[in-house]
């Protein structure tokens, strides 16, 4: 049985530091999730609006976000805009900006899909029953949309949590950075630390995302 380097975890405050790193990652993703849900609803409504200009704009926005890798977006915001506009962004702020920018587009598309999937006759029957526009949205459209939306947006949330691992590249000290530090610090005493520490990080991410995916799958089945 070779030394797997798991013992490094129990030295000092290593485990607590790793969890703290995960906390930073989760904090960034939570902030961006909240922002992107709010913005995403607006974007989604704009997408279904019958105004060609706003639709074309939103379509462009979505395509840009779809096609650019998040990593490139992060670099653009962190290195690009700071140079061009001369302001000073911390790594965390720029990652929140990027993830919200990305999440709002994806969320907007989900909202649009959910709104479109409500059949026309639902609106028409609501009108026939004498409900006003606001009432139609409140009692007919929203409950159905939200049901379709929640499982999908939970999948998006897990994707955002996973993508936060990228912020390491722009110098935010999150879980992966912490694990690199731990490995460096223990290079002499336990050379195999890389295996154990990365395995732990792997497991941490898995247990952060797995419950959310499970819940999403469960809700999807239940509400079908």
């Amino acid at each position, binding site marked *: 049985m070779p030394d797997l380097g798991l013992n490094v975890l129990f030295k000092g405050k290593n485990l607590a530091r790793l969890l703290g790193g995960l906390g930073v990652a989760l904090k960034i993703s939570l902030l961006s999730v909240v922002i992107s849900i709010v913005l995403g609803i607006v974007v989604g409504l704009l997408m279904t609006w019958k105004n060609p200009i706003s639709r074309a704009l939103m379509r462009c926005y979505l395509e840009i976000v*779809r096609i650019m*890798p*998040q*990593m490139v977006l992060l*670099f653009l915001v962190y290195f690009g805009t700071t*140079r061009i506009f001369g302001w000073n962004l911390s790594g965390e702020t720029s990652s929140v900006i990027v993830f919200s920018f990305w999440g709002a587009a994806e969320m907007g598309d989900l909202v649009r899909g959910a709104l479109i999937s409500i059949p026309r006759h639902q609106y028409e029957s609501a009108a026939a029953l004498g409900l006003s526009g606001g009432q139609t949205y409140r009692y007919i459209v929203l409950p159905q949309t939200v049901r379709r939306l929640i499982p999908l947006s939970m999948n998006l949330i897990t994707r955002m949590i*996973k993508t936060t691992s990228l912020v390491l590249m722009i110098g935010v000290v999150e879980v992966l950075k912490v694990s690199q530090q731990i490995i460096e610090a223990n290079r002499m005493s336990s050379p195999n630390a890389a295996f154990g520490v990365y395995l732990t990080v*792997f497991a941490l991410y898995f247990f952060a995302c797995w419950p959310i995916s499970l819940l999403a799958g469960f809700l999807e089945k239940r509400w079908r």
Partner: protein
Amino acid sequence: MLTLQIGVLGILASIAIGIVCTMIQYFKVPFVRKAVSVYVEISRNTPLLIQLFFIYYGLPKIGIRTNPYACGVAGLAFLGGSYMTEAFRSGIEAVDRVQTESAASLGLSGIQILRYVIFPQALTISFPAFMANVIFLLKETSVFSAISLMDLMFTAKDLIGLYYQTTESLFLLVVFYLLILLPVSVLGSIIERRMRYAGFGS
């Protein structure tokens, strides 16, 4: 263009993994089926970056040597395989049970049912998801610079370091990603439209 090369290799590998895993689930092979679903859960719920770090830095410590190139392809295939499995599986599940039953009552064998009845329909249904996965995987290749592969991202960083012309390098980076991904995206939506006509005649 190392980015493209790894991307294509990784995607081909992940399609292969996806097909094998879907077949295993479709034919309900005992035990292996459980292993497949565990694999899908694990790789879907962890980021590619972590998987790469684990493969590249972690595995050599227990005696498995890899070079960054093979490691990149393996990581992409590991992640992509599960996404492809999901896409194909949802396609197969969406084909109505009636189809299988009527095919069986026409006297087709199990393989024939799959070949002539299920597969064409499932392909059409799962195509949009499949295309989205291809684009997703190509985008994920940008992560590889983390394990010191000379991909687009890494080259861009290198150029910034060399010439200190951040804006120009970043602009080129964006243009090159557009060059790679825009054709794929457009091609995907064209094929998707054609297949929809072919599938349902509407």
